[in-house]
């Protein structure tokens, strides 16, 4: 390493100042990112009156989180638990189905040559660039004309279509599934679907996890589609339910319970994020579509 022309002492001083500056920026940005989440955690431990009277960023005298959770689960015949289950059902079921369908389509687009292949793939690419919320309203109009609205399927069917998943699995299959392996399977007399199931799916596993995660989060966080499609609150996912409570301005359900509900609803997702970071990054950087 070459030393720059300035005296070593002065260079050291500016470097130290620079490092303090860098650290200050990072700490400020971290505070900006974390404080609202901290507020959520702290507020979920407060009683309704403490929520208004105590400092928002610190605990009040009593920690009421257990009581808040048990009250929350009892409100309106336990509808909050029902919402969580709905979210789980939409997200797990939808993401599983979406992953399988995407893997099949992406695999075929990568490994078979057939007429119209590029056209199909370009159509899928185009669909990635047009955000899903844009389709929610026309889909609602169409579903309402065919009387599918306000059913489980109105939310579930759109959830299992993931153009991004197809894109991701095509890229991954093209790179990771060797033709020789498929040929070997064919020589052994395996059918095409058997080859897909026992060879391709195994090789594609990491990308399947990525697709599953992305679709899980997309469905879990979706608000526009279910809020349009579902009038029946027993079918709604947790996002729609919580916003509806908030709209009633604390009259039916007090604020501290809404906050507790919000905290509970983000725990599954945050835990998934933390556990599966490397899959997230793989998905984010190989296409970066929400």
């Amino acid at each position, binding site marked *: 390493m070459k030393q720059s022309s300035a005296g070593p002492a002065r260079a050291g001083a500016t470097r130290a100042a620079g490092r303090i500056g860098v650290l200050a920026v990072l700490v400020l940005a971290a505070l900006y990112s974390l404080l609202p*989440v901290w507020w959520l955690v702290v507020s979920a431990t407060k009683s309704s009156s403490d929520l208004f009277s105590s400092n928002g960023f610190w605990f009040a005298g009593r920690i009421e989180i257990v009581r808040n959770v048990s009250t929350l689960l009892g409100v309106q015949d336990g509808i909050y638990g029902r919402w969580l289950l709905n979210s789980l059902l939409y997200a797990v079921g939808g993401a599983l189905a979406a992953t399988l369908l995407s893997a099949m389509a992406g695999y075929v687009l990568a490994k078979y040559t057939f007429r119209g292949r590029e056209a199909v793939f370009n159509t899928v690419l185009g669909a990635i*660039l047009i955000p899903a919320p844009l389709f929610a309203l026309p889909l609602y109009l169409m579903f309402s004309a065919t009387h599918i609205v306000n059913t489980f399927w109105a939310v579930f069917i759109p959830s299992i279509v993931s153009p991004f998943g197809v894109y991701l699995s095509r890229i991954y299959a093209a790179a990771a599934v060797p033709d020789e392996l498929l040929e070997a399977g064919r020589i052994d007399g395996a059918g095409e679907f058997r080859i897909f199931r026992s060879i391709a799916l195994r090789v594609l596993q990491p990308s399947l996890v990525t697709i599953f995660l992305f679709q899980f989060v997309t469905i879990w966080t979706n608000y526009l589609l279910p809020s349009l499609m579902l009038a029946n609150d027993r079918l709604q996912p947790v*996002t729609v339910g919580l916003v509806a409570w908030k709209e009633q301005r604390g009259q039916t359900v007090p604020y501290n319970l809404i906050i507790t509900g919000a905290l509970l609803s983000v725990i599954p*997702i945050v835990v998934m994020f933390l556990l599966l970071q490397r899959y997230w990054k793989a998905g984010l950087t190989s296409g970066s579509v929400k």
Partner: protein
Amino acid sequence: MHPAPTTPTTAAPVRSHEERTGPAPAPSGPTPAPAPRGRAVDWRRWTPLGFLLPFGTLFLITFVAPICYALHQSLFKLHRSGLGLTPPSTVFTGLSNYADALADGAFTSSVVRVLLIGAVQVPLMLGLALLLALLLDARRTPGKRFFRLAFFLPYAIPGVIGGLMWSFLYQPDVSPIADALAGIGLHVDFTSDSWLPWSVGNILTWGWTGYNMIVIHSALKAIPDELTEAAALDGCTGWRLAWHVKIPLVRPALLMTTVFSIIGTAQLYNEPVVMKAVAPNLSSSWTPIMAAQNEVAANNYHAAATRSVLLALVIFVLSFGFMRFVNKRGAAL
């Protein structure tokens, strides 16, 4: 490039569109490549169709059909007779819905509003994301893992829940931020008309900076070490290294995050809808999607379809325009 829609049922003049790419898993014709080998060949030829069918069918139902349906609906109007004694009839009205939508001040100003919010918020957010990515990429930065995770955490929180949190943080009677500001003599109402665009922009910045930072940071990490070391040997370090070497090399990532941020802002919905709970003055057509949904609520399905199509066109023009701009400069997606 685009699921170009055609209206299947009407003879109506369809708005100009690009080539129609067969979106369906069209029955594959004779396969050119594989060598014919007995009767297995016939099956092999249909395999792609079998694999594509489940996704293709659902894709048609949930992506292509709604577009066609919305285009179709946008060309009709519900005609009610003067006294309302007979059931309303659907009348073909050509593009008059579009004329109405463009003359609807609430709708056009919602489009302008999100464009203005995006014009301020997107550069701010991406600037911050780039700065943080560069700092995390610098060799001597301490606590990289912690900071990266901290910045990324808001992205893990669903947009609508993030909106819910911030709506409490803005709400005058609960807000610890307003409290703290009042403590130093500043009285701010984050839910007032003049503050709303900033308040919503802040929720977006909070939620998406970390996401963009990760994308840019990954691009930075892909820069070969030899390159930065060579630059460092030439005396190019710190900010000069960032400006002259690193930033030009991550331009594709920057352009990509820009495109997706533009698209994201144009479809703004969750945050303002949640904010409505604390800001009653926030109009029900504050953003284009809200405006379209407003028409649904009023049972004006044709008007809603028209607004959806117009918004899709705006996003199409913005994103594909940007894509072409990017591609012209030789940066890949």
